[in-house]
């Protein structure tokens, strides 16, 4: 009987090698994918903590307005004068000083400010590093048919790690004449 040459010799090895290369490719993709996902643990936690810090800033801003409304109305009155173009240089200067002082209490980076004291307490509670502040604090009025409504527009920010969140609230207020 004549022996035929074995043309299939090594086919199995070749197939296995192809499979192995495919599996190793998959493993490589997975390893890199997993590495990129590892950081997202911290990111998620920082995002939630930033939101909590921004909420704290919002509470502080509303609270200050509630306990010291007349101090804010002085700023608002000067701002209205400035917008109408009736404010002189002294009034504009006073506005800048008052507004800076009003906002300084809300910034956690200002040592000794109420915000800095709150930040210290929050950091102590969670063992994290938060910072927060108020970006905008203004009174906006909307005039429609027969009524004028006033709103307090507050935009706060909170940060933890590399994550920053912004909160904005529009609170209806009634300004007595």
């Amino acid at each position, binding site marked *: *009987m004549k022996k*035929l040459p*074995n043309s*299939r010799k*090594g086919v*199995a*090895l070749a*197939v*296995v*090698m192809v*499979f*192995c290369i495919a*599996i*190793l490719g*998959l*493993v490589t993709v*997975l*390893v890199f*994918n*997993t590495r990129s*996902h*590892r950081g*997202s*643990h911290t990111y*998620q*936690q920082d*995002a*939630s*903590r930033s*939101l*909590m*810090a921004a*909420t*704290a800033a919002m*509470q*502080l801003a*509303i*609270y*200050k307005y*509630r*306990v*010291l409304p007349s*101090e804010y109305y002085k700023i608002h009155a*000067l701002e209205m004068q400035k917008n109408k173009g009736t404010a002189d240089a*002294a009034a504009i200067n*006073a506005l800048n*000083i*008052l507004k800076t*002082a*009003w906002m*300084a*209490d809300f910034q956690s980076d200002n040592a000794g400010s*109420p915000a800095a*004291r*709150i930040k210290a*307490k*929050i950091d102590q*509670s*969670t063992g*994290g590093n938060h910072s927060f502040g108020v970006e905008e604090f203004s009174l906006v009025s909307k005039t429609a048919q027969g009524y004028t409504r006033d709103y307090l527009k507050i935009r706060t920010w909170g940060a933890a790690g590399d994550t920053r969140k912004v909160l904005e609230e529009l609170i209806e207020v009634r300004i007595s004449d």
Partner: protein
Amino acid sequence: MPVSLQKTILLLHCPSRRAGLSLIEILMALFILTIAVLPAIGTFSGYYGVATRQMEQEMALKLGEAVVNVLMTANYSLLKDGAIPSLPLNIQTPSGSFAGTLTFAGSYASGTPVTIGKTRYIIGAEVKKIFLAQDITAPHNNALEFSWISPDAPPVPSAGAAPPPPPVATYSCFNDLICLKVTVDFGGAKPIELATFRADMAR
């Protein structure tokens, strides 16, 4: 029996060497496959673990935020005095809506454990007074103080003298102010801890 018939029978009973694979080939193939598959299994397992932990942490954070929201809307006076016996916890989870309670014992609270999938989330909360209301009869330094610069113009300084610093006034708050801390333990290395500040808006 003729020799040709014997060969035919032998060929019928013995498998062809050309049609199959050699034992060495199979063993080598298995060996190479094992080398390739073992790290793949390890990586899959690791990836699954990372994905699971990430999902659990995200869920814990969402639960924590939900509990903070519940505490932010609770009656302030009762909350700061530790006079709330319990608060309802109605939370939407991927497994459906969860209805539990946050039971207080003084300023500490523990929630009904939430089970989502195989993970059990244990909720805890703490209400802590971080600033005390100022007392006129016995002033203390633990009250929150706001400051502002008086809008009244400072007196004009005499020629050559340094300008006086702008007058700064302070207001000491007459409210106890609190810090809300929520902890969610999901069996991870470290429980989730969220904290925020809440002020008394009742005035």
